[in-house]
């Protein structure tokens, strides 16, 4: 168990806002934390655990850059308070590689140039991972529709679809 404390100055009440104790299971490791109760799941991951893969693009749940998996399902972590996720299993982009070997979607995103600035990429990849699990990657129309919660301002959408298609068809080939 790793302990992470919110920074406080000695001799000063941290806040009128009560702190909360929370254990987040992130990428397989438990982290016990004492947090300002206003801290979002995204900020807990980024500012307190140093997992900066998930990005903050709007802080309003509208761009998808902060997408992570909770118990296998994708959520926008900027609209989630860390305190609500005590004991839950959280997967971030950093947890996607398997013993240093990138996930097939990570490789496909590189191959298809499915990003430019790369800022939305962690969220896109996490959404794409989830899409497969949701069974929504079967058709182009589904990929378009169910990847539409992840904004790419650089405009890499066609290449993002190509990367997902590529991995889906590889998976299908493998299962035949």
């Amino acid at each position, binding site marked *: 168990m790793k302990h992470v404390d*919110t*920074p*406080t*100055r000695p001799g*000063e*009440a*941290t*806040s*009128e*806002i009560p702190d909360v104790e929370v254990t987040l299971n992130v990428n397989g490791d438990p982290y016990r934390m004492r947090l*300002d109760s*206003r*801290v979002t799941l995204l*900020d807990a991951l*980024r*500012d307190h655990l*140093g*997992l*900066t*893969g*998930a*990005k*903050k*693009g*709007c*802080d*309003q749940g*509208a*761009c998808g*850059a902060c997408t992570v998996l909770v118990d296998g399902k994708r959520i926008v972590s900027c609209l989630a308070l860390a305190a609500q996720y005590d004991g839950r299993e959280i997967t971030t*982009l*950093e947890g*996607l*590689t398997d013993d240093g070997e*990138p996930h097939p979607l*990570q490789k496909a*995103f*590189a*191959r298809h*140039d499915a*990003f*430019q*600035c*790369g*800022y939305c*990429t962690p969220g896109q990849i996490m959404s794409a991972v989830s899409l497969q699990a949701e069974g929504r990657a079967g058709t182009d129309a589904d990929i378009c*529709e169910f*990847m*539409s*919660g992840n*904004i*790419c*301002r*650089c*405009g*890499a*959408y*066609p*290449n993002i*679809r190509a990367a997902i298609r590529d991995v889906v068809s590889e998976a299908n080939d493998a299962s035949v």
Partner: protein
Amino acid sequence: MTTLEDPTRTVIGEGVDRVDAPLKTTGAAHYPNDYTYPGMVHAALVGSTIAAGRIRSIDASEAQRAPGVLTVITHLTAPQLERGPMTLLGPSPPAPMQDDRILHYGQHIAVVVADSPEQARHAASLVNVEYEPAEALLDIEDPRAEILENPWGLDSERGDVSAGFAQADVVVDERYTTPDNTNNPLGLFTSIASWHGDSVTVHDSTQWPHNVRTSIAQIFRIPESGVRVLAPFVGGGFGAGLRVWCHTILTAMAAREVKRPVKLVLTRPQMFTSVGHRPNSVQHIKIGATSSGDLTAIEHRAISSVAMEDDDYEPVAAGSAVAYECPNLLTHDRQARLNIPCPGSMRAPAEGQGNFALESAIDEVAHALGMDPLELRLRNYAEQHPVLGLPWSSKALRECYTLGAERFGWSRRTPAIGSMRDGDWLVGYGLAGVSYPFYQVPCQARASLRRDGSAYVTSAATDIGTGTYTVMTQLAAECLGLDLNRVRFDLGDSDMPYSPQAGGSGLTGALANAVHMACGNLVREFLDIVRDDDASPLRGAAAEEVTASGGRLHRTDAPDQGEAYTDILNRHGLEELSADGRSTPPDPQKIGMATAGAFGAKFVEVRIDPQLGLLRVARVVSAIDGGRILNEKTASSQITGGTVGGISQAMFEETATDAGTGRIANATFGDYLMPVNADIPDMEVIFCGGPDRATTVGTKGVGEVGLVGMAAAIGNAIHHATGRRLRSLPFTIDQLLL
């Protein structure tokens, strides 16, 4: 040495994967807001809630007492600051928080620093401000607004436009409007400042680290050598990172006061009022043509909005002067000063707005003449630069039109309005031409070769998604005859050799020529070392007689006479050799050619459901003359991304300013519309032409040309499908209900 025309070359042009892809796909690429420092504290900004007037009183006492707060700085307590320097792109923004005047909504009026971001944000909400409001000027056509005439001296006049219109059989005379758009790169702009004595390290969401360095040094009166600016990765910019905006200055100011590293991350709503936007425009365009389709006169007058006390380079009409061969022409640009956040460059500034009016009006002329709009464009093709009267350094726009038309299937277009259908959908074909301006400024780079035979090349540029890391690695590998994985190109650090901004589609050209020269000079350094070396097969060889290949240099006419870089370094006891290179933009008069930017032809198919007013872009073919393409894959991505930006400009984006208060009414990603995945079809990009003749490497920037022309091409396709001529962006459902 190796020339770029070497038929054995394998690295240049090839669509290799981005060299930074492993970092970007694993979360290991660090953007400004991913950094943290020991003891770092957090800033939050308070923005004005009125657009004009004065601060009568500002009470920060409650905020100051809030938990975790270290300081609250207002205009009453801020140090006096100089305005930043004059730059290549014009003046710096005025220094922030210097007096009690309010010039626009969202103006930064206080900065709160606290231990945590949550504490800072909360305390910012406790700052109590009383205003003395004044009436805000917000309408671009408000007669009270101060007008700047011909602000950049780029107005054009040739021939006699009145006589030209008198000769015309057809005259189109229309008013086009474009709204404010907000850049909205996905990365929230972030500044971190960490002082150590009179030196400061700054992480910043910038497209131009050296500009940040120069500005911070001048504003805080410290030597430039004491300022280090880092931006190895930036979460997009689209122009927003070209200037040193007030939030960066305030971060450095706050960090100096609290003597701790300070981080400031703008909120998404603040991104609408703090870092520029594409200004709205009203354009009057008048085009005359003979019945056979010869343009006789073009008159393009435009007005854009600009802030009360800041400047923006936005010559909306000026681009029309070089688009067509037309003997009589007048362009005139103006700006109206308003109580708005200052506009700034947004991907294809000015061109994005001006081309919409010009290329739509050309389509109107074609329709009035009953002529194919492609034929009209080819008929009035500018073989020479219409203003300079010089041949272009390269121009394959004709090829773009013809190859693009072929790929798109333009010949299947039946000209009659509404004549193409697919079930319930009306189908429309539209096109637009693009002549993007040339822009290039001096740039420097340094190349080093180490004892293990690997190369390290640097320049303080940025890669805002453009592929700079990748294409410069390719170019250096090619010039030095090394495998890609033996070369590292690094950027985003103001301690590296000077680089201009990633902007104006000018960086790749400027930087490529600097890297090319640095690598050439490095080869010369090696030859210099072995000039009198009896042990070297290269003894006495001149650079022109030598080829770099396979990690070695050899005589071009005798490949077996050569040796590896590592052999030379080892024999001479050297750890590494380095050389600098610099590029300067070519002078058209000296080279006898008009320096050309990129050209493009955009072909679009739209589908419209006439009952619901639904508009869908079904297909796009972009045919682009981008000079030498250094990497087919990243260059295509630039064009595709630009095209998405153009679709966005055409159909989605409009920053809405509340007429009464100057508040941005849609300053969130829930309200400000941008395309999502389902809005964008698969698209084709083809590259035409070859290396540009004006520079050694021969690239032409492709970062912006892809956006331009989309609004007109979509509008022209809508007209083809429905007979409706839409002259006001964006094209929304209410304009399309038939």
